[in-house]
């Protein structure tokens, strides 16, 4: 699979390294050259310095012919704009977007974007850890890693 990831922060870089190690063709876009340090030496994918909401930059990253597009920059609106360019203009089949704002997430999910929201995922997960502890009584000293993904 040919994957474009915009935003080389912790999530973007980790995903890029994993997919690259699994043999996928990966291109990462970020405005800061230093962000690519997170990819480590083994990363064999393409690194593109530039603004992810600029069509020319996305073309350089090889968006034409990409199978999947992931936007995980730190800005919700930036992610939304990049994702819509990928989906509506370049017709990328799978477009996955991170949005921190749950309301905006629901609006754009209704519009047909594939979105995930770390805010609700995180809160739900913490709540589940917490309830798990409560259910097991006072002697439950902490998280034991048995909690599966909150949904």
């Amino acid at each position, binding site marked *: 699979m040919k994957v474009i990831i915009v935003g080389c922060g912790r999530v973007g870089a980790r995903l890029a390294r994993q997919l690259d190690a699994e043999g996928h063709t990966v291109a990462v876009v970020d405005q800061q050259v230093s962000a690519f340090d997170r990819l480590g030496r083994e990363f064999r994918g393409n690194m593109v310095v530039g603004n992810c*909401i600029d069509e020319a930059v996305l073309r350089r990253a090889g968006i034409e012919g990409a199978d999947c597009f992931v936007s995980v920059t730190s800005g919700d*609106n930036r992610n939304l*704009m990049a994702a819509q360019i990928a989906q509506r203009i370049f017709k990328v089949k799978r477009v996955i977007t991170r949005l921190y704002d749950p*309301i905006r997430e629901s609006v754009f999910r209704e519009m047909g974007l594939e979105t995930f929201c770390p805010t609700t995922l995180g809160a739900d997960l913490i709540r589940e850890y917490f309830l798990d502890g409560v259910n097991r009584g006072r002697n439950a000293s902490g998280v034991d890693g048995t909690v599966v993904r909150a949904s």
Partner: protein
Amino acid sequence: MSGPTDPPYVIIVGGGKVGFHLAKHLIERDYEITLVEKDAARAEWIEHQLGTVSIMVGDGDEMAFLATTGIERASVVIGTTGDDEDNLIVCQLAKIKFNVPRTIARVSNPHNVAVFKALGVDAPVSATELLMGLIEAELGSELVRGVAVKASGTCLVDLALPALSGYVGKRIGEITLPKGGIIVCIVRAGKPVVPAPETVVEAGDELVVFSQLLDIAAVGEALSKS
């Protein structure tokens, strides 16, 4: 008749230089304005300057906040922040969630004009592109007498027809301007002449041409060729 219509209600998101001056200008023209600005200190300053303006401190791209601005009765929502992505999302939310009839967005990167249109913004306005076009028109041709620019990036330009132009003596019906430029009026000796296919253009005529702003230079060049 229900009397004179209410002034259009316009919401401007982004209280930077563009948003501030636009609000000021529209208030003078009796529009009803709400200006949305994220930064409380900046908002206070604007309020101090404009007095009567309704200014709200908040996130223009936050749904819950937008709902408090009376957005559902707005005729126009304008995104004037310095960030293209923020202006796009404001306009999309206004359009999709609140059925605002017209959305206008300031666009910083000229490449994004087409993107904004494709993503449903009614009128993306690129200051960079307008400025480029105007400067290029001035550079490219001494024939330019005046330019009236429309938000869509098109314009009406007054071009003097030089005596040596290859177009002199031709009928309107025979003239094809480059890049789809259209002669909408001829100003002859200070008087407007409506161009018909058989109207012959004369040296000294001023042609009012409808064109893409960025194509003015090409049109001017064609007119000056002998």
